[in-house]
C-alpha cells in the first residue's frame, strides 16, 4: 500500500509486523513553548553519558571552567567527551547518583556555577563546506554529541560508516512514538532552522542520494513546519514523510522498514544496507556544534505527568539536578508515586529526584495517582498469542517467556532472544499481566554473565564468525585498494618513467607514516575495531541493558 504524502514525490510506505496504538498523553506537554531553564547552583556532570568508554576527567578540583569548556576527554574510539554546561568552579570529582535503573552512583564532575555563563572567545567562523567529512566528524566528536533519542551512541562513530558502506539513504528520525514525549515535536516547531542546517551538514558529509525526515501523523504542526522549511531550504533530495502513528515506529529497524521496505539483517548495521538514521534532536545539535562551535551543553526535556505542576518542555543544561528542574517547573502537583525516565514503554523508574539531567534524558514522567497503574497480579501464560500478534521483531514472546522461566538459556537463544528490542508491546497486551520484558532482560543478563566466563555460547560463536568474516573482508578490501592504487599509478602519465612498484611502495609508506602521526586524533573505522574495543562495546552494551532487578520469580 502507499500513502501519498507529498504531491510532488509520493513516498511509498511499508508495514512492520505488530505494533500498538497507544494512548498518546502528549497533549499534557506539547502545547507550550520550550522554556529555557537558567543554570542551577550546582551542576553534576556524569563522565559516562554515552555508550562506550566513560570520559576521563581533565580538570581538577578548584579549577575555574568556562561554559562549553571540555572537562572530560573521550577515552577510546567509542566514547565522547563532556563539557561544562555553564561557567564556575569545579568543587568535586567523585561518585554521585546518576539516572540508571539500578540507582547506582557513578563518577561526576561537580561545578559550582557563578551565574555569569562566561564563554571563551569564539573561534573565527569558517564555511563548513570547505571541510572534509573526517574533519567535521572530529568536530562532532569533540562536541560530545551522542544519539539524543535516548540511544546515546556516539554520533561521530555512527557517522563513520566506513568506505565500504556507501550511504544512499539518510533517515532523520522525528517519529517520537512513545507516549508522553514531545521534545522532538516542540524542537521541530520552534527550531526548524537548526534541523535544516544539520541536515545540510550531514548531506555534505555523507552525500546520500536522498534524505527522508519521518514524522508521525499525530504531529500535524511539526509536519507543516518541517515541510515548509524543507521546501524553502532548496534541499532537493530531502523529503518529509508522514507516517502513521504506531508504536514502535521510531525504533531504528522499524523505521527503516517503514520507509524503505528493507530489513536490517539481525547481525548487521543499517549501514550494511546503505542507510543511516539520525535522531532529529541530534541533527540540531550537530548544526550547533558545527555552525556555532557550541558543544552539547543542554537538551530539551519533556517534563510531564499528572504529578508535575507545569508540565511542558524545558531546555535544560546537562548536569542540572532533576529536583531543580522540577522546582523550576512549579514543583510537584501531588506527591509522585513514580518518576519514570524515558517514555512509559521503555523508560525506567528513578529511585529519587536527586539525579542530574544527562544527554539521554528526553523525558521525565512524574505519575500522579492512578496514572499508569502497575499490574501486580501475574497469572499463568495461557498461550493466547496476543503477544505474538504485536511483536515488531516477529518473535514468539510466549516461548521466550517459557524458556526464561525454565532458565533454558540455549533454547531461548534459539528463539532469538537477542532480537528482542524490549519495546514492551508484548507485556502491554498480555491478558495474564506477565512482566515479560523483565524476564527477557533477566535472561539476557544471565547469558551475558555466562558468556563473560566461558564465551562459548551460540551467540559468542556467531560473533566470532562475524568477526572472521569481517577480517576476511578487510583483507580483501586492503588488497583491492592496493590493486586500485597500483592501477592508478600506472595510469598517471607523469609516472610513466618511474618504476610503478617502487612508487606504490613509497606511497604506502608515506601513508603509514601519516597514519601514525594522526592516529590519536583520527577516528578509526567502526569495522576496524581491535579486540579490546570490541570488548568495550560489548561491556558497554551489557551495562546499558543491565538492571539490578531481582530475577523475576
Amino acid at each position, binding site marked *: 500500500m502507499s500513502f501519498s504524502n507529498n504531491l510532488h514525490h509520493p513516498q511509498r510506505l511499508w508495514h512492520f509486523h505488530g505494533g500498538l496504538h497507544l494512548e498518546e498523553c502528549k497533549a499534557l506537554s506539547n502545547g507550550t513553548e520550550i522554556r529555557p531553564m537558567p543554570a542551577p547552583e550546582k551542576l553534576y556532570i556524569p563522565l559516562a553519558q554515552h555508550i562506550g568508554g566513560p570520559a576521563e576527567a581533565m580538570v581538577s578540583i578548584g579549577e575555574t571552567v568556562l561554559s562549553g569548556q571540555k572537562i572530560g576527554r573521550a577515552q577510546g574510539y567509542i566514547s565522547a567527551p563532556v563539557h561544562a554546561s555553564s561557567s564556575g568552579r569545579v568543587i568535586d570529582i567523585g561518585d554521585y547518583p546518576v539516572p540508571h535503573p539500578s540507582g547506582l552512583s557513578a563518577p561526576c564532575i561537580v561545578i559550582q556555577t557563578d551565574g555569569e555563563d562566561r564563554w571563551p572567545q569564539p573561534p573565527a567562523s569558517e564555511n563548513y563546506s570547505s571541510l572534509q567529512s573526517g574533519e567535521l566528524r572530529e568536530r562532532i566528536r569533540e562536541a560530545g554529541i551522542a544519539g539524543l533519542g535516548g540511544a546515546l551512541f556516539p554520533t561521530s562513530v555512527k557517522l563513520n560508516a566506513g568506505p565500504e558502506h556507501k550511504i544512499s539513504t539518510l533517515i532523520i528520525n522525528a517519529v517520537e512514538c512513545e507516549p508522553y514525549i514531545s521534545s522532538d515535536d516542540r524542537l521541530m516547531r520552534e527550531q526548524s532552522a537548526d534541523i535544516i542546517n544539520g541536515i545540510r551538514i550531514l548531506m555534505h558529509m555523507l552525500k546520500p542520494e536522498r534524505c527522508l525526515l519521518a514524522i508521525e501523523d499525530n504531529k500535524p504542526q511539526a509536519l507543516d513546519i518541517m515541510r515548509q522549511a524543507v521546501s524553502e531550504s532548496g534541499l532537493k533530495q530531502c523529503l518529509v514523510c508522514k507516517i502513521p502513528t504506531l508504536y514502535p515506529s521510531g525504533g531504528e529497524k522499524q523505521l527503516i522498514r517503514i520507509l524503505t521496505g528493507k530489513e536490517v539483517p539481525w547481525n548487521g548495521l543499517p549501514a550494511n544496507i546503505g542507510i543511516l538514521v539520525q535522531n532529529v534532536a541530534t541533527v540540531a545539535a550537530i548544526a550547533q556544534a558545527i555552525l556555532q562551535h557550541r558543544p552539547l551543553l543542554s537538551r530539551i526535556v519533556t517534563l510531564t505527568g499528572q504529578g508535575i505542576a507545569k508540565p511542558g518542555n524545558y531546555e535544560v543544561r546537562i548536569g542540572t539536578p532533576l529536583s531543580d528542574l522540577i522546582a523550576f517547573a512549579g514543583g510537584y502537583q501531588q506527591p509522585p508515586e513514580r518518576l519514570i525516565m524515558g517514555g*512509559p514503554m521503555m523508560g*525506567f523508574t528513578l529511585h529519587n529526584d536527586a539525579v542530574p539531567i544527562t544527554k539521554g534524558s528526553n523525558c521525565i514522567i512524574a505519575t500522579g495517582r492512578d496514572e499508569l497503574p502497575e499490574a501486580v497480579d501475574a497469572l*499463568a501464560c495461557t*498461550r493466547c498469542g496476543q503477544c505474538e500478534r504485536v511483536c515488531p521483531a*516477529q518473535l*514468539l514472546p510466549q516461548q521466550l517467556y517459557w524458556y526464561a522461566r525454565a532458565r533454558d538459556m540455549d533454547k531461548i537463544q534459539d528463539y532469538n532472544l537477542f*532480537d528482542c528490542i524490549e519495546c514492551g508491546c508484548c507485556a502491554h497486551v498480555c491478558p495474564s499481566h506477565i512482566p515479560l*520484558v523483565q524476564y527477557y*532482560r533477566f535472561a539476557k543478563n544471565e547469558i551475558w554473565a555466562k558468556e563473560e566466563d566461558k564465551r562459548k555460547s*551460540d551467540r559468542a560463536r556467531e560473533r566470532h564468525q562475524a568477526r572472521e568474516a569481517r577480517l576476511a573482508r578487510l583483507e580483501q578490501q586492503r588488497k583491492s585498494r592496493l590493486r586500485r592504487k597500483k592501477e592508478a599509478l600506472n595510469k598517471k602519465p607523469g609516472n610513466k618513467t618511474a618504476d610503478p612498484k617502487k612508487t606504490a611502495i613509497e606511497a604506502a609508506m608515506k601513508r603509514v607514516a601519516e597514519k601514525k602521526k594522526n592516529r590519536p586524533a583520527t577516528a578509526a573505522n567502526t569495522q576496524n575495531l581491535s579486540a579490546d574495543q570490541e570488548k568495550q562495546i560489548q561491556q558497554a552494551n551489557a551495562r546499558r541493558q543491565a538492571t539490578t532487578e531481582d530475577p523475576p520469580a
Partner: protein
Amino acid sequence: MNALLQHSSPHGTPQNNVTRMMLQVLLALVPGIIAMIWYFGWGVLINILLSCSAAVFFEALVLKWRKRPLQPALSDLSAIVTAVLLGIAIPPLLPWWITLIGIAFAIIIVKQLYGGLGYNPFNPAMAAYALLLVSYPIQMTSWLPPEMLTDVHLSFSQSLSAIFSGILPAGLSWDAISMATPLDDMRTQLGQSNMISEIRQSPLWGDYGGRGWEWVANWYFLGGLYLLYKRVISWHIPVSMLASLALFGLIFFSLDPQSHPVPLFHLFSGGAMLGAFFIATDPVTACTTRKGQLIYGACIGALIYIIRSWGGFPDAVAFAVLLMNMAAPTIDYYTRPRTFGHAERERD
C-alpha cells in the same frame, strides 16, 4: 522525598485480562446455549449448572490441596468455560453422576495435575468428553429429539428428576423419548447401505443438517464471529478447520453423492461449529504460531471427517482435537515465524 515505586518497563496495566477474555467466550456461547435449551429442553441448562458448580468445587479442592491461593485461579473463569463446554456436549438428560465424573476428571486430572491453567497439554472438556464416551457409550449417545420432532416436552422439574433419579414422568420410557443424533443416524443408515437420498427423506433432516441441530450450529457460528470481532481468537484455526472439513466432504461427495452427505452437513452437524470456534481455539492446547494454527486446524478438520466416516464413533471433534493437542508442540516448533532481520528458515 518518599520512597518511589520501582518497576520495570513497560509501565501501566494492560487493558486486557484473562477473566475478561473468558467472559467474552462465555458470552459468545449464550445464543447457542439458548437455542439448545429451546430445542432440547431444560436438561441442557441443568447440565450446565451442575457441571459449573462441580467444576468450582473441584478446582477449589485441588487448589486447597496444592496449597495455592483460590482467588486468582477461580476468578479467571477458565474452570467455568471448561464446565460449560462439557455441559453442552453431553446429552441433555445424562445421569448426574456421569457428569460429575467427567468434570472431576477434567479439572483434577487433566487441568490441575498438569499444573493448572496454561500447563495442561489436553483440552480438559474434550478429554473428559472422550473418557465418558468410551466409558458410558449408551448414555452418552442417547440424545433427545429436537422439540419439533416430539410431543414430549419435559418440564424443568421433570428434567431435574430424570437427571438426578432417572425417573421419567409416568407413561414414558427412556427408549421412547431418546433418539440418536443426526450424525449417529447417518452413520447407522449408511452402514446399512442406504442411499443418502433415502436417508434424507426422514423428518430428522433440515436444510443441510439435522433439524434443530443446524440452528444450534448457526448460533454458535454467530458467537464465533463475535469472538473473532473481539479478537479473543484469531481466524486461523476456525477457518482452516472448517475449510478442510468442507474440502474433504466435497471430495467424497463429488465422488459418490449417494453414500456421502453434502459437505455442509458436516459443518452444521455434531460439534463441528462449536469445536471450530470454541474448542479447537483453546489457546492453551492449540498451536500458537500462525502457520502452525493453519496446519493444526486443517488437521482437525481432516481427522473429524476421517473418524466420522470410518471411525468407531459418530462424532469426532473430541478425538480429533485431542489427537492434535498431542501434535501441537511439534507443529509449533517447526512453524516458528521468521524473526525480523533473519533470512527465511535459518536454523542450525
